[in-house]
């Protein structure tokens, strides 16, 4: 999940390790049934922190005139109507197309979709993990599914 959010394996591993350490050091004494939701809460929070830091760095670089497009996390963000993953990659594999499409989603939509679909969390648990209201989760999730279906309709009509 961190890999989808950051688009960078090393950054993703750092985030996951940080979340693991935070879980073990702060909540290791909690009941094992709480570990999953707590870990997701920490992980999503770390991802959001990373995203905000990168956005701030991007703004500073833009002001200082040292912007580097290759390191811009916003470059991968939302332009679902203008991009078709298979066109961009020249790759017709559904998995690769899904990864690309997920990377093109806004962060909150991506989180809502992955937590609901991949992790199997219900709306309440997803809201807890994302630190937002259940209404927001429903909105993000619905938009994510809509965008992904449009992007991937050739693979999964």
């Amino acid at each position, binding site marked *: 999940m961190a890999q989808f959010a950051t688009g960078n*394996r090393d950054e993703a*591993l750092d985030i*996951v*390790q940080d979340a*693991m*350490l935070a*879980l*073990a*050091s702060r909540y*290791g*004494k909690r009941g094992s049934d709480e570990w999953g939701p707590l870990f997701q809460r920490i992980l999503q929070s770390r991802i959001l922190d990373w995203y905000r830091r990168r956005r701030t760095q991007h703004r500073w670089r833009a002001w200082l005139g040292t912007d580097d497009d290759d390191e811009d996390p916003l470059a991968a963000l939302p332009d679902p109507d203008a991009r078709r993953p298979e066109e961009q990659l020249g790759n017709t594999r*559904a*998995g690769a197309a*899904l*990864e690309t499409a997920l990377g093109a989603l806004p962060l909150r939509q991506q989180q809502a979709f*992955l937590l609901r*679909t*991949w992790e199997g969390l219900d709306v309440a648990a997803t809201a807890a993990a994302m630190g937002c209201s259940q209404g927001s989760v429903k909105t993000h999730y619905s938009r994510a*599914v809509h965008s*992904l*279906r449009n992007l*991937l309709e050739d*693979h*999964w*009509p």
Partner: protein
Amino acid sequence: MTDDRESRFIAAAKTELERSTQQLDELTIARLRAARQRAINARPRRRAWLAAGGLATAALSAALVAVLLFAPAAPPPATGLEQLELLSENDGIELYRDLEFYRWLAEHADAA
């Protein structure tokens, strides 16, 4: 009908995501395992802290009892005249200055 298609889409997406997890490269898996191990090692150990805390409390209690039982009784407070006498006598001041030495001497005199 739309719901069925959406359900199929979500199921297919989930299958692909799980497949991508199973296809993680060895290096990533090793790094994840190492991260997990570091997290486990960083977990606070309650028993160790309890043992250390218990030992520290016991040592502190023993020291307190020893001080209360074996500390010499405090001398009665000096009267105003005695204080004046102490301050006026050079010998008395030097004695207080070298108190540590005299104490050491008393302790080692027998062995000398």
